[in-house]
């Protein structure tokens, strides 16, 4: 297969040791991909038609997108079918159809089928749109690794603008109803919903927003502009306040021509809005609409909404409000049913050299008893296999080097001295202020051992500071390196050039604001992602750029290293998150499915999963192994700017512009907590090393500490809750707030717990 060659060829500049240690990796991942039976066939069909999907990533996109909802192969087939139809290759399509035996609407309800069509069309539009840019990018990278495409220059709106399938999507609106009656339809439904029993009213009220949007868009599309305006003016006040951002975009859209370029509305059209309604309420609605012969609304419900019907008690208003708010409604229940291996991987057995001095030192202090059990607990944790953990070799991980083992030993030693935090013993907080950051500080990261801090700036620079008295030094030049005695014991010290020692280093290379920085766990590399569409890998030995990973082509909002190194994930304006390996210039996986920009990414502690937060107000969890979306969390009312996992991997915390932190149970796929207390966007979240305390940092110049133990303790995840997904949140999250700490008019944009549980916070001083 053509793409396997591409992805296997290695970048010359890629770091050597990493590539050596994980060389089995690409094969394995590709094998997995080949398992899907339809794959070969696609290749052939597509190739014989003279159109080749050049990049492997497009296929990955296909699989991943499909996997998010249905069985991957089937979805892929449908996508290919659609593509063939579009290219007027009806015969091939028929052949394919016959061979695979897919009958339209066989075992599925028509509404589901049409939903799939919708998905395919978006998907295809993505694939075709992405294909051109990707192939040009790939080509450039192949030839010289120079500039791929023109990042940041392509117009945002041009992507889907002139594609036939978009107008096909929009043409679903051509059905003519009497525009004058729209208001009447809507208000009659409103009257009906207001008249039903209280228990049903809350559920049925969910219909208002999607119906409102679709009816408005229909009016606009059919060029009843004045009608559309009056319709909007009349009913926009009824919508929930958390849809205000979308309504604002909607209000500015008053012409048919505008709809073509507007991505938000395109998403609204192409993805079905998901509502979760109890069977009783649904029957009530159905009966009403059929009795009244309210065909306009009924057809919208059938075509553009996906109603997830469940048996049992209708949900309360609070329960609904907690879960809705995303661009596409709630997550379907079946989307969160896949098993997730959220346990931690077994730590490799490292023979800790018994350093007697340390032991004796402890003994002298007279606390030998305390020391022992602590050590045991750490030891047992790593020895016992977690039942929820993925198989050790589920995804290939780099082998440990000697230096990594030394580091592990250091971590274990440090963790023995760790402060046990709790509501009574809160961490000390130390705030690193970036002074004179006139360039605009946009991103901060601190190494795991808290020895270095990196800042990304709006002026395209990345600056690295040493937080210890040890200065930053580069390695000597090649000529000088030849002179040193390689056999000497202190060779690692000798290779460093003392003349370059300084407190901070500036890394130049990006051509746009740097939106994220991330240190590799071994502190040898630094990642930075920028508006210029690239992710760059910097060496912290030479303080030079090693690789520029091109592929996003649009601003890359976030990038983060895997906790085991080697892999990293990035997410950007192109609405996908990409998984990369440091020695591959093309992504290994593309996680596609978000309906808007991916603005935050985070690796699960076991490195098998990636969580992404998006402007579409959902959090998704992706499986690194097969690229599937395994969890969709809805409930945030604004873009999600930060994510963090608990150290045990069971829970996920997300912070958003809605000033709230939401906590999610990964295993059950449920929301388990809501932390309210901030007054502005939350940009930083971090759990303490043992997971007792959650620290959150916000634009409102405060750091808040939350009692994580208590939050997760009183969870009653009975079978009913996990089956229905209905949640009851604590009313008083103020009990969980342990403290609020003010900075000196400095927004908090990064938080970090040192290995001994000292909390470090960072931000740039910004006078009002």
């Amino acid at each position: 297969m053509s793409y396997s060659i591409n992805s296997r060829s290695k970048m010359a500049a890629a770091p050597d040791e990493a590539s050596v240690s994980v060389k089995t990796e690409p094969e394995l991942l590709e094998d997995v991909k080949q398992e899907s039976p339809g794959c070969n066939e696609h290749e052939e069909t597509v190739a014989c038609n003279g159109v080749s999907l050049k990049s492997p990533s497009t296929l990955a996109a296909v699989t991943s997108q499909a996997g998010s909802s249905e069985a991957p192969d089937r979805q892929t087939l449908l996508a290919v079918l659609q593509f063939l139809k579009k290219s007027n290759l009806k015969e091939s399509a028929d052949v394919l159809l016959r061979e695979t035996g897919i009958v339209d609407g066989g075992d599925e309800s028509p509404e589901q089928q049409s939903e799939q069509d919708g998905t395919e069309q978006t998907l295809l539009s993505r694939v075709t749109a992405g294909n051109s840019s990707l192939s040009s990018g790939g080509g450039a990278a192949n030839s010289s690794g120079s500039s791929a495409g023109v990042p940041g220059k392509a117009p945002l709106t041009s992507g889907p603008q002139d594609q036939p399938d978009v107008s096909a999507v929009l043409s679903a609106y051509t059905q003519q109803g009497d525009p004058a009656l729209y208001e009447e339809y809507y208000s009659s439904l409103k009257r009906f919903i207001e008249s039903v029993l209280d228990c049903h009213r809350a559920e049925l009220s969910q219909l208002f927003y999607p119906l409102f949007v679709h009816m408005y868009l229909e009016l606009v599309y059919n060029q009843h502009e004045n009608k559309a305006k009056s319709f909007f003016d009349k009913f926009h006040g009824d919508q929930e306040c958390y849809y205000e951002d979308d309504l604002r975009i909607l209000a500015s859209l008053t012409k048919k021509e505008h709809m073509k370029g507007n991505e938000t509305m395109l998403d609204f059209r192409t993805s079905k809005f998901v509502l979760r309604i109890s069977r009783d309420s649904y029957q009530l609605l159905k009966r009403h609409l059929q009795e009244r012969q309210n065909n306009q609304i009924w057809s919208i419900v059938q075509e553009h909404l996906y109603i997830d019907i469940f048996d049992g008690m209708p949900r309360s208003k609070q329960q609904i409000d907690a879960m809705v708010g995303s661009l596409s409604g709630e997550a379907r229940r079946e989307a969160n049913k896949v098993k997730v291996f959220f346990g931690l991987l077994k730590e490799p057995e490292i023979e800790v050299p018994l350093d007697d001095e340390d032991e004796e030192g402890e003994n002298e202090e007279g606390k030998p008893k305390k020391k022992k059990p602590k050590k045991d607990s750490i030891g047992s944790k790593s020895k016992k296999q977690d039942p929820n953990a993925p198989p050790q070799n589920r995804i290939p991980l780099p082998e440990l080097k000697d230096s990594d083992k030394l580091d592990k030993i250091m971590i274990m030693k440090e963790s023995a001295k760790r402060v046990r935090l709790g509501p009574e013993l809160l961490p000390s907080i130390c705030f690193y202020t970036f002074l004179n950051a006139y360039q605009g500080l946009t991103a901060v990261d601190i190494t795991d051992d808290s020895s270095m801090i990196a800042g990304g700036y709006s002026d395209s620079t990345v600056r690295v500071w040493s937080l210890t008295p040890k200065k930053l030094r580069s390695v000597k030049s090649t000529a000088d390196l030849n002179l040193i005695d390689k056999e000497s014991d202190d060779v690692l010290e000798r290779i460093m050039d003392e003349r370059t020692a300084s407190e901070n280093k500036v890394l130049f290379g990006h051509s746009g604001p740097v939106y994220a920085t991330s240190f590799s766990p071994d502190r040898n590399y630094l990642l930075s992602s920028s508006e210029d569409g690239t992710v760059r890998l910097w060496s912290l030995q030479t303080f030079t750029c090693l690789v520029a990973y091109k592929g996003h082509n649009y601003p890359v909002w976030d990038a983060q290293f895997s906790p085991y190194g080697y892999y990293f994930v990035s997410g950007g304006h192109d609405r996908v998150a990409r998984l990369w390996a440091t020695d591959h210039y093309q992504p290994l996986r593309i996680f596609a499915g978000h309906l808007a920009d991916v603005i935050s990414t985070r690796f699960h502690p076991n490195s098998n999963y990636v969580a992404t937060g998006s402007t579409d107000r959902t959090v998704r969890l992706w499986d690194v192994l097969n690229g599937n979306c395994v969890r969709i969390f809805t409930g945030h009312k604004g873009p999600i700017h930060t994510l963090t996992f608990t150290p045990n991997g069971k829970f996920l915390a997300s912070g958003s512009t809605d000033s709230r932190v939401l906590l999610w149970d990964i295993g059950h796929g449920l929301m388990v907590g809501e932390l309210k207390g901030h007054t502005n966007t939350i940009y930083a979240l971090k759990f303490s090393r043992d997971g007792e305390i959650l620290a959150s940092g916000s634009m409102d110049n405060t750091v808040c500490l939350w009692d994580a133990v208590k939050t997760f303790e009183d969870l009653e995840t009975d079978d009913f809750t996990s089956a229905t997904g209905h949640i009851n949140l604590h009313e008083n999250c103020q009990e969980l707030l342990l403290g609020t700490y003010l900075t000196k008019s400095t927004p908090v944009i990064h938080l970090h717990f040192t290995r001994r549980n000292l909390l470090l916070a960072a931000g740039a001083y910004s006078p009002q």
Partner: protein
Amino acid sequence: MGPLHIWMKMSQGLLCLWPKKLQGVLRQESTMFCSCSIGMTHTEDRRYVELCQDSVRLTAESVGLEITDEVAALLAEDVCYRLREITQFSAQSLRHSRRRRLTVEDFNRALRWSNVEPIYGHGSPDPVLFRSVRDGDCHCAEDREINLVDLALATSIPKGTAETAVRVHVSYLDSKGNLEPQGTVPAAVSMLTDDLLKYYQRVTRAVLGDDLHLMKVALQDLQTNSKIAALLPYFVYVVSGVKSVSHDLEQLSRLLQLVRSLLSNPYLYLGSYGCSLMQSVLYCVTEPLAASINPLNDHWTLRDYGAGLLSCIWTHRDLEGSLYTQVLQSLQKVLGDPVRPLCSHYGAVVGLHALGWKAVEQVLYPLLPTYWSGLQTVLDDHSMSNAQVKADGHKVYGAILVAVERLLKMKAKYCEKDAGPSPHDSYCTLPPAPTVSLLEMYNELYCFFGDSLAVRFGTGGTPLQPGTISRGQQEPKKESSVDGVRKMPQLTAHGEEEVTNSGRQPQRPPQISLAASSSSRPRGASQQGQRGQGVREAFQRSRLAPRGSPRFTFLIGGRQAGRGGNGRRFQSVFQLHTGPTATPSRYAQKLPMIGRMTKPGRRGSQAELSLYLPL
């Protein structure tokens, strides 16, 4: 040509034409995008920018396009939509930059993403000012003209932006720390951590206590300690207690020394506390303190010290001169209030002096004519009951004299600079305007002070740091005038006993006639080849200057001189035009006989100390 295409072409012009509107929208949108919880309270028309078709047509004409109404209307609508779209993109850029304020940069970035050329020329972090154009309902950005010459020759060179750095600023130990909101003076001291509380108590006790050595150590530590930021409000609070100890000069001066220590501590950020400190100091300088009732108390020194502090405060790095006008106004108020006692006026004068010669020119000089009459009456009253007040009056007189002397000197220096590096040559070509006003000022001041001003007025070849020159040279030329009796500095240089009112009048005409021939002056000066001659004539009635000598050197300082060399010597080499219209002053008749009045005794020595201000 599709509408979008036209729009791209026109966007530049459009955006420039309605920046006011646009900015309003940007602000609105950004706030709306940043906060998600606000309700639908905005009225519909205020939420979005609306461009009328006339505007579009105008813009089109300005780029040379003729468009019909229909096209204009369509375009206007489309441009509105694009603007909104771009605003939404820029809000996204804002969020990712972790900022609160939407900048021009964000908007430009959104334009670039949309493949539209960005708008050049705006990039300041400060908000852009808009003003309306008088004819037409149009707003445009304030575009001040900057005089590059002034900028290039400015003496205050702005420092480059400091280096970006990471510093630990706020620390909460075990999550405990000073949670006091900034900018308020706390009610109780008990809210600090134990260590800080102890430090605070020790230091305040030491500063206000009896042990001089301890006090010095405490003040020294206050100047250098980097960890007392949390205590700043408490110290400010302590200092604000000046009002309660106005009877105790010793305590007052200690508090002022505390202020000086706080001011010189580089780790403290004064911020809003600067104002509070300034008010406390101002209280010491200008209020009629309880301590000043007793003439034995040397409250003058305190006022002088306070005045020095005032200048420290307004030039302090944290305050950036923001308090200057405030101080100036309060001093003006004090000086303009005839009801206040003379010691208050004295404080105001030394305060103005400390603020710099410009402050003196701005406030004291215009007030002088009115103030003079009041002072005159005090000084002319020879009754015994008035002795104390009169003594105070002399203090004020001396202070004013020192202030105006500095004013004249600085003014003269300014003129010299203005004249360029070769003053002789430039005389003939450009008689600079400030010279005239200087002369007028001198004339007017001379009417008040007479020769006492003239002899003190020395600049020219001497650099304006008298301390450096005066120390080494101890050769007073007019020792005869400096005898033990004359102790008031303003009197010391007065050697000629025969200076009288009547004696001055007839002497004026020849001098004026000499000065009036301004056109022939330069030639005459060059003919003579003696700068000194020409220069000396600027001092219209300074009969003290030895005729033949090119330089005039004298000493000020009664006892200082006697002690051996601590006096100041001034050299009166000063190039100056004598204006053609040296009108006889209307104050001429009022000239006091100050030169002859000598006040022997204790007070004189104090005065000399207190007036010994650096010029």
